[in-house]
């Protein structure tokens, strides 16, 4: 049996579909390849692999937006969008039967920005229904397969976007991250993924799961591409009252300048290296720590004592907000409506019972309960207080360290079906990623080697709006290592 992956010596050796976008940009500008060829190739790759991988829910012709942004980095480069990001005139389902025939009447702000930049949008990617899940098994439209091993999950909820990049169909894909939904599938599929600071990227047009936690972010081949992607999508949006007015530097310029890692303090949270971590994962992350040390970084220990509350706090806040956010799917205005019903209440109940999947219903019920009168103080309010404690933990940690380094997941990709019977075990796989959402800080995942032949991710977190520092450190790591040059053999 041949290996399930290929490791290239450098970008030059890589086939066009696996090269990073900044290399493709150079090739387009040098007329080594045309934008039309690129889109054609990407659409063909996406279409031909979709039968096996099921990464895409819809594949469009791409290229339609080539008119805009001739001088922009992303002009003519094929990208994909998670199917909870609304696209005017293109079906947007959020992975749910309840929206299976929903075609939005407007574009999300990030879509508008990508169109303005001339990016070629080739398709919408599969996901856990309403972004609720960690394996993409909760999609109403079938599971997405991990291209490294199609018996394994790609992670989730943005599994389709991770696979679109990992399988060489798109050079960049947008996902959304509410508790790790970008970083975890990025880690499990061996690509880079980032959740920016809450408010850095507009949520306008992102079908809400948990409004105070959701953030859109990119999947890419390497850290420089992530910086370019953030450049394209970030910035204050007058349509999103929670989007930040913080000035956005050019992240790509910052990353390209290079960063002297000498004396940069990298914090290691004790709480993230306890029991239950797969040996391979723990080894790879420790090797990465060694690499940073070799680069001159100073490794310091930090404490995040409220980490143990992160999962319960997350599942109270996220489900409470979700129970309200998903109320609009009622069969009245758009989307699925049950075929037969006796009266209004019956229409609501049948529509939502038939339209939503099991995990979504589970979370709506949990959230409704948490907000109910008599329980609100004990659950929702207490969770908010604990969330504040978690935020304070990070502020304390960032007073000692510039960046925090940790694993992304306790284990590499698990088998399809392995955890579906036990939601709690599934929830536990988000343990290292959830805190960044609760604390509203930015965090990214980059490949740091393999465990049992499957990719392992390394998480770097920064303080509010410190994406530049975080991306630059990741890129310095990638300049000196070759984990990101290892791709799935597809």
């Amino acid at each position: 049996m041949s290996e399930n992956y290929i490791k290239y010596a450098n970008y030059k050796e890589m086939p066009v579909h696996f090269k990073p976008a900044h290399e493709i940009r150079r090739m387009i500008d040098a007329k080594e390849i045309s934008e039309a060829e690129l889109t054609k190739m990407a659409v063909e790759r996406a279409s031909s692999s979709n039968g096996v991988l099921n990464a895409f829910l819809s594949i469009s012709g791409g290229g339609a937006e080539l008119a805009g942004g001739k001088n922009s980095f992303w002009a003519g480069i094929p990208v994909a969008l998670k199917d909870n990001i609304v696209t005017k005139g293109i079906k947007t389902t959020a992975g749910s039967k309840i929206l299976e025939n929903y075609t939005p009447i407007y574009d999300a702000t990030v879509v508008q920005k990508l169109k303005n930049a001339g990016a070629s949008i080739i398709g919408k990617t599969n996901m856990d229904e309403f972004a609720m899940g960690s394996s993409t098994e909760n999609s109403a439209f079938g599971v997405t397969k991990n291209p490294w091993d199609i018996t394994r999950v790609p992670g989730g909820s943005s599994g389709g976007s991770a696979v679109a990049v990992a399988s060489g169909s798109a050079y960049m894909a947008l996902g959304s991250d509410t508790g790790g939904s970008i970083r975890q599938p990025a880690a499990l599929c061996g690509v880079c993924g980032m959740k920016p600071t809450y408010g850095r990227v507009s949520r306008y047009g992102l079908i809400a799961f948990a409004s105070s936690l959701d953030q859109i972010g990119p999947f890419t081949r390497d850290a420089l591409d992530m910086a370019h992607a953030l450049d394209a999508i970030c910035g204050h949006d007058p349509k999103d009252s929670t989007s930040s007015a913080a000035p956005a530097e050019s992240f790509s310029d910052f990353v390209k300048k290079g960063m002297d890692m000498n004396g940069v303090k990298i914090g290691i949270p004790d709480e993230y290296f306890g029991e239950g971590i797969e040996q391979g994962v723990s080894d790879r992350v420790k090797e990465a720590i060694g690499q940073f040390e070799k680069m001159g970084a100073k490794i310091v220990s930090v404490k995040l004592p409220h980490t143990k509350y992160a999962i319960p706090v997350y599942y109270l806040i996220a489900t409470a907000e979700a129970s309200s956010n998903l109320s609009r799917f009622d069969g009245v205005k758009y989307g699925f409506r049950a075929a037969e019903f006796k009266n209004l209440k019956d229409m609501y109940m049948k529509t939502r019972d038939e339209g939503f999947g099991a995990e979504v219903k589970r979370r709506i019920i949990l959230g409704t309960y948490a907000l109910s009168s008599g329980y609100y103080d004990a659950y929702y309010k207490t969770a908010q207080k604990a969330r504040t404690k978690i935020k304070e933990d990070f502020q304390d940690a960032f007073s000692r360290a510039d960046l925090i380094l940790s694993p992304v997941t306790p284990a590499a990709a698990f088998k399809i079906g392995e955890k579906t019977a036990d939601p709690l075990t599934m929830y536990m796989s988000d343990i290292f990623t959830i805190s960044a959402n609760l604390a509203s800080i930015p965090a990214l995942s980059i490949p740091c080697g393999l465990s049992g032949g499957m990719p392992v991710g390394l998480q770097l977190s920064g303080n509010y709006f410190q994406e530049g520092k975080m991306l630059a450190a990741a890129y310095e790591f990638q300049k000196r290592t070759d984990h990101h040059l290892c791709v799935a053999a597809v």
Partner: protein
Amino acid sequence: MKYEAVIGLEVHVQLSTNTKIFCPCSTRYSGNEPNTSVCEVCSGQPGVLPVLNAEVLKRAVKTGLALNCSIAKRTKFDRKNYFYPDLPKGYQVSQFDMPICEKGYIVVNDGLAEGKKDKKIGITRIHMEEDAGKNVHGADGKSSFVDYNRAGVPLLEIVSEPDIRTSSEAKEYLEKLKTILKYIDVSDCNMEDGSLRCDANVSVRPAGETKLGTKVEIKNMNSFRGVQKAIDYEIERQIKVCESGSKITQETRLYDEAKAVTLTMRKKEEAFDYRYFPEPDLPPYDIAQKDIDAIRSTLPELPDAKFSRYLDEMQLSAYDASLLAGNPSLAAFFDRCAAGYKNYKAITNWLLGDISKKMNELGIDDIFDARIRPEHLLEMLALIDNGTISGKIAKTVIDEIFASGEKPAKIIEKLGLVQISDDSFILNIINEVVAENPKSISDYISGKEAAVGFLVGQIMKKTRGKANPRIVNEMLITELAKLKNA
């Protein structure tokens, strides 16, 4: 046993902003086809986010200041969750525990009902929220439709303390509230077209008891009169229940206007759990004192202050002062006239007399919708004062102003209404009338003074009202005296 009613009112007013509370759609949807004044935001499409219309916040603060409230230093929005087809998102963005305004009051009974004392009705809170759409039921009795044009129109909910004791006090509270809101120009306040809506919480208790009885909420009242009748019915109903030895059930009742009764809508145990929680899509708002001060400086003179000024400084009667102060347009008209004419009583008499009568005849509610302007009235008053026209002729002039909008001087000239004060001309007429009415003359000579009135009438008739009545009177008496003494 004697019973006392305890009443609190919850009033919703639509703010007359140009655009909706969270999106740029126009609020002027009246008459539009269903679902044409909507966008992705107010129709609750997936992925949309609200952005607060700053004008809504301003008007809420303005309202709070006008209603003597304290304004929150920090305010936030919350979601009120419930399912109904007219509610596009399945939740209403409203305010729960940090409303924009609290602890205000309205004074009722000021002056209008003489002999009664002023009374403060407390205002518990004012909060901002979005309106819902409207369900429309098909003629076939099977299908229903939803129109979201109204969804997202800004509302203020104004909640009173349970300080109201009678239905007429409730009506006075509503009228005063409406007057104030019209003064500060935040809402059209029209109950018939739904820009002002009122729910009432009513309970009864034995007179002298300080504990509150079980309250019943009444909805679906479509006029101030309806509010009054519904409360009266409900008080009587509750007293009957108490006197029969039964207990009042906590519930929501609907007012049936046609039958003038209230009927059970839902019991307490059927009440919704709205699961309020902070709206995560809108960060809290901090309100700076300087912004509050700036808004305060835009407040006009409010009806209570106006009433006092009319009463104390302008020496109007309490009745006249309260009628003027109670009508923002009339008061503004009066103030503009009073700036140029010192006989305030004369202005008041014309405004509340002939002009109001004319408006009623023509069905005009707002004096600024009529063609008469303060300049017209001022010019007319000057023409009366200098003797150019009589008060009687002035009534004709008023009619003509309403019809044509022309200036009094022009009307007088056009219709030949100038008052005749020429002695020799009037004497000729007097002589004619004396000659034509020998019976009246002999009546007068035999001592019947009433004959004078008849003769003046005849003279005025001959001059088509244009003769100066004062001169006519004087000269006629002189001439009659001559005849008597002859």
